């Protein structure tokens, strides 16, 4: 591979030529970070954060004895380092993700995005896990852990998009199964009712998850810029429909816009982060969204 500027790796056209996901994600993060100023939030820290009241079961070693001496009450000292969170990245593995009119399919774009986010999260000291959104169960889930980044990358590399996924239902099921909470990064094309997705996201939020939803679309899928009448086949259901694009384009674009607006309203206004992306967009926007999200304390808004 020729040497390229690290920041150039944010360009999807460049990313399309690199197969090694681990290398790729690392290079992306390096390229992204090198272009931004370092901040406290981006590095690991052991500085004191705050005190909290002792609760039965807490580690007695973490009691602030000096404060006990002044107040005669038990308080525990918490540090910034302890704000490191569990980051669970979730990928929609439905067949509809296997579509691309440009250099990258939505699925590959999503894998790169998740790999970069996982790498960045790990670099920030977060624990990274992975869950594929597809199938009837959540088999293949990798729980968040500080040393699970290679497993996550490996899982991302081996996934094949197939079948159909009801995103809202999958998120609701994840909320029921996942015990620990943290940050859930979901990358999907969101082919589900906005209300159902909002229901799933709401269920996760109710369990304490901070949800970041990246809505990935292909430019052709978003703009529907076909000209010739043709028969279109659904990648998930194989259903067919003869369509004259010239006749339906306006209505289709309106439907897509309405869907995005509804997701932004239902999901975004509900406390989750929602970012629509197209596969021809550089990744820095998504990474910046992540950093903004990560700048906030876990569990807070």
């Amino acid at each position: 591979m020729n040497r390229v500027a690290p920041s150039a790796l944010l360009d999807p056209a460049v990313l399309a030529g690199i197969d090694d996901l681990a290398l790729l994600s690392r290079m992306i993060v390096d390229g992204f970070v090198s272009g931004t100023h370092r901040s406290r939030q981006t590095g690991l820290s052991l500085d004191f954060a705050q005190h909290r009241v002792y609760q039965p079961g807490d580690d007695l070693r973490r009691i602030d004895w000096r404060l006990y001496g002044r107040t005669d009450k038990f308080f525990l000292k918490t540090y910034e380092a302890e704000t490191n969170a569990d980051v669970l990245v979730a990928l929609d593995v439905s067949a509809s993700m296997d579509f691309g009119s440009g250099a990258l399919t939505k699925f590959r774009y999503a894998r790169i995005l998740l790999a970069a986010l996982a790498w960045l999260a790990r670099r920030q000291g977060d624990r990274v896990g992975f869950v594929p959104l597809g199938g009837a169960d959540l088999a293949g889930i990798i729980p968040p852990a500080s040393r699970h980044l290679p497993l996550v990358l490996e899982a991302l590399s081996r996934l094949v998009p197939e079948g159909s996924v009801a995103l809202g239902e999958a998120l609701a099921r994840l909320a029921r199964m996942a015990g620990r909470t943290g940050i859930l990064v979901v990358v999907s094309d969101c082919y589900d009712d906005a209300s159902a997705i909002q229901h799933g996201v709401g269920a996760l939020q109710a369990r304490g998850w901070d949800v970041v939803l990246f809505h990935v679309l292909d430019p052709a899928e978003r703009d529907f810029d076909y000209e010739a009448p043709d028969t279109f086949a659904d990648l998930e259901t194989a259903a067919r429909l003869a369509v004259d694009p010239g006749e339906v384009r306006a209505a289709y674009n309106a439907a897509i816009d309405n869907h995005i607006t509804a997701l932004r309203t239902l999901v975004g206004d509900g406390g989750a982060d929602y970012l629509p992306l197209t596969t021809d967009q550089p990744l820095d926007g998504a990474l910046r969204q992540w950093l903004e999200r990560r700048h906030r304390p876990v569990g807070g808004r």
Partner: protein
Amino acid sequence: MPFGFLVPVLLAALGALAAPLLIHLRQRDRRRPRAFPSLMFLARVPIQTDRRKRITDWPLLLIRALALALLVAAFARPYLRRSVSPEGASAGLTVLVVDRSQSMADSAVQAALADSVAALLREIPGGGRIAVVGYAISAELLAAPTTDRAIIGTALAAAKPGAAATRHVAGLRAAADLLGAEPIPGTLLLLTDMQAAAIGAAGVPSLPPGTRFRVMPLVSGPRDNAAVRGLEVRPFGTPAGRRAAVAAEIFRAGGLAERSTTITLTVDGRVASSVERILPTEGTVRVTFDTVALPRTTARLVVRLDEPDRLPADDVFHAVVAADEAIRVLLVAASPDAGRFVERALSIGRAPAVVVERVRSLDAAALARSAVVWFQDSPPPDGTLGEALNQFVEAGGGVVMAAGSLVSRPGGGAALDLLPAVVRGEAERDGTTLGEPALSHPALAAFRGTTLDPLATVRVRRHPRLEPRNGGRTLLRFDDGSAALVTSSIGAGRTAVIAVPLELDGGDFPVQASFLPFVRGVAIWAGGLAAQPTALDGGDVWRLSASLVQPVVRSPSGDRPEVNDGLVVLPAEAGFHELFEGSAGTVPVAVVALNAPGGEADLGTMLPEELLLGVATDDGTETGTVGWGQPPAAVELEHQQAGWRWLLLLAALLLGADVWIASRGWRGAASNQVVTTAGGGG
């Protein structure tokens, strides 16, 4: 310009034109569809699903269909006819001149005529004016110039062949008259079977300048046909009654092999004799029947070939044998030696028998008991006797003057007003021959149907010069064109002047075989018996006696042919025509038989160029042929079908244009767009 295909069966492949359409409409959903992530939003958009059955790209479909059609047409090997159709001829009047002679009754010719007419009506532009002229021995306007195709179609359908011979000039003259009345040049289209026997009657009248003259041959090549072309009846008396020796002439031409046939003779509807003979492929067979009994009254004879061929109309021959009545001829001869040959000739034969009374000069008593007065080189009387002679003729008698050297002298006295010709001196030229016999005339009926002209063997050394007058009709001429026999009808009677020497001092006619039938024919005709000829040829007129009151003629089919003011009937239907007085009853006053001319039996064809010979081309008249009904020769077609190369080239250009168009614009984008499916890669 009309065109055809050498391999028209390949045009069935044009059905493949439906393939692109069916593929487009029915197979559209079976091709690889365009992958799309989800139809969730498309399904919510109201879509006109009937668009599935609509053509979505007309230009490409039309280009491909046209290319396919051109390919099919190229493989069918199209050719252009060299001839010019009436469509491209001119915008003027088109006159269809349809041959209606008997030879056109050939079933194959009729089929070709129907096809050609249908093609013509398709080819001639809708606004073009058309007239139809039917002709055989004479012409008839069947449809006046009109643009109404229905009228033309009806007229052509009614143009059925009759029993007459072919006389092209009659139809062409009628068409020329029509075209001459037009302000702009028109087209004359002759539809005929190109019968070679009619070539003698060919000849084209002068056509209006600029006329396009086209001949449409309806058939080509030899055609097998047999016909009864003549009948010879020799009645003779026996103690038991009248009998007759009958011989028929059977003609055949165009045959590929000899064939056997049975010839049957019927008399008054009863089979009298039957003979089986082998007919050669070409030629004439004389069939002699057993002698048959004839009634004293008029007898109707029919000879028929029992195996009809492609032209059944000429397989039957009709003849009438007059009633057995003797004719009294008063032979007026100044010298005892004069008229010996005539007297002897008239005395031979029966049916009718001729009773000759010889006198040196005419007297009233002899005139009263005679039917015919024959002046043998003796001048007719004038004065009172001449007046009596006039009355004799007006009442139905016959006068014949055989001019010789005596009446040829100046002041010879052959100037009787009732005679149809006067004698103007004498001509001497050794070896003079006779020709141009009017065989349709009853006086020369004995010479009909003979292949060679028997009168052509006569040699004359010296003969009187006749000058016809009083409407006299010349039935026979010398080879210098001067009249040899002139006849006329006066009142109910008949007169004739003969310039052919009937003595050996003027020629050899008395010793020729044709002498006897000639003399008897003239005498019998003059006597009035032969006024009802035994058989007429199609196209001949039937002259009725002036003494008839309200004559009515009944044709074989029961029709009533028109009797015009001159008591002339033009029968057109072969068979027996009966004459009645007052109304058609059971016993006719007279009967005449009508047959097609013998020449119509020969169905051999001539080349159109032979017919076109003599057509003036220096006044802008164009000639040519049109080919409907006559397929061109294979070699000719091969030379005319080079157009397939151009069709292939045009199809290739269209396909190239199709590729170019399909790769441009949205069509190209649609076909080049590849949906990326990463599968498990990446």
